[in-house]
């Protein structure tokens, strides 16, 4: 079972690498958000450095969200999902494997690349390590929750807006605790509690997401 799941993950990673587009476009999106924020708020350094962690998180979760609606759509359209559903591997494991592949190809690289861009927004450099740690911790939850949106809209022609409406409220806890962990180092409090809660949210999403994705996709495959 593990071997099959690993084969599925490798397949998705190879496909993502050969096709390209996903990660590069998402990175370009984050860059353009980074340019727009100072233009919207004004170039005040103190204000920007205060806003920086929250804005970096917002840019990260919006860019992950933008990749969500294509997560299952392609495999659904060309029939690969039908074959995977008929195979021996439990369908929950299939959706989990595809989600992990999404995490490795999109969310994790973005979580590593995004924090240094905070320097453009005069982010306090001492905050950089904790921002990277919290973003890596939260990135798996972002992929798992995005997968729910992707699965629910897999058979729809225009699912983009619906994905945002469904997934953004689910992102609230990740955003709150992610930003809390990133900013805690400025004050007297420690960022460990927020990081632990972030891990708990990730684990909870790990339980809910594969089940929800499998059930939603089966409704389309029937």
């Amino acid at each position, binding site marked *: 079972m593990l071997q099959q799941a690993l084969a599925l993950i490798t397949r998705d990673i190879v496909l993502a690498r050969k096709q390209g587009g996903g990660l590069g476009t998402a990175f370009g999106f984050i860059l353009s958000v980074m340019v727009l924020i100072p233009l919207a708020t004004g170039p005040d350094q103190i204000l920007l450095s205060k806003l920086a962690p929250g804005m970096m998180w917002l840019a990260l979760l919006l860019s992950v969200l933008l990749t969500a609606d294509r997560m299952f759509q392609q495999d659904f359209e060309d029939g690969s999902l039908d074959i995977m559903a008929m195979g021996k591997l439990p369908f929950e494991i299939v959706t989990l494997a595809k989600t992990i592949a999404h995490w490795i190809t999109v969310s994790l690289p973005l979580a590593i690349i995004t924090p240094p861009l905070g320097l453009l927004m005069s982010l306090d450099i001492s905050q950089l390590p904790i921002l990277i740690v919290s973003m890596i911790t939260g990135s798996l939850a972002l992929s798992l929750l995005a997968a729910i949106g992707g699965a*629910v809209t897999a058979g729809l022609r225009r699912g983009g807006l*619906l994905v945002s409406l*469904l997934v953004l409220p689910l992102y*609230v806890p990740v955003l709150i605790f992610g930003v809390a962990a990133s900013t805690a180092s400025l004050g007297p409090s420690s960022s460990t509690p927020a990081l632990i809660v972030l891990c708990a949210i990730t684990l909870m999403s790990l339980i809910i997401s594969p089940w929800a994705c499998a*059930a939603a996709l089966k409704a389309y495959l029937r």
Partner: protein
Amino acid sequence: MQQFANPARFLKIANAALPYIWSITAILFAIGLYGALVTTPPDYQQGETVRIMYVHVPAAWLGLFIYCLMGFFSAVAFIYRHPLADAAAKTAAPLGAVFCFLALVTGSFWGKPMWGTWWAWGDARLTSMFILLLFYLGYMAVWSSIDEPTRAAAIARIVALVGVVNVFVVKFSVNWWNTLHQPASVIKMGGPSIDKSMLWALLTMAVAYTMLFLALHLVSMRSEIAARKLRQARLIEIGNR
């Protein structure tokens, strides 16, 4: 549970019960509103504005209660695959969204004289109610964007179940976020305890709101069943052509 799941029997019981439910609703609203607007004393701090509480708090309760109910119906539909449970969840959503919206609007009317602002992000209850409204809108959007009813039902069940689990996580995290920021401008609503002279009117209003929801829910379930029959009849007609 199972014996009420037959649509024909459900319609029979609903039709028989609706006149009584409407009359109980009217009587409770008459008593509750009289109590809320006339007999209960004004608050010693808030004055007459405290009367907004009698329309605001029951709406907020129902907003959350209906969402849980929707999750329950969706779980029943998920386990037993019964279309009536899907219809119950589908028709509960717009009603819940309206109660949620009412709670937000009356809350901001209450906030203006009390906090001096229409909206305070510092209040965790306002913020989490707003997010609850988004969950309702997402659920309703699923029904409206998928054409085929059985497929829409299957997807909507999952969205509702995922939402019910997450709505409490969201509420918890918003509360935590709120204590983190500790806003200075916000006075605690309602105070530590509520006096008996006010409590009876509030509870009457809460029961009145619940009965109103029950009546409206039965009516909209009835029309949902009628709409399905109509759709089926049309399909058969087209097939016979």
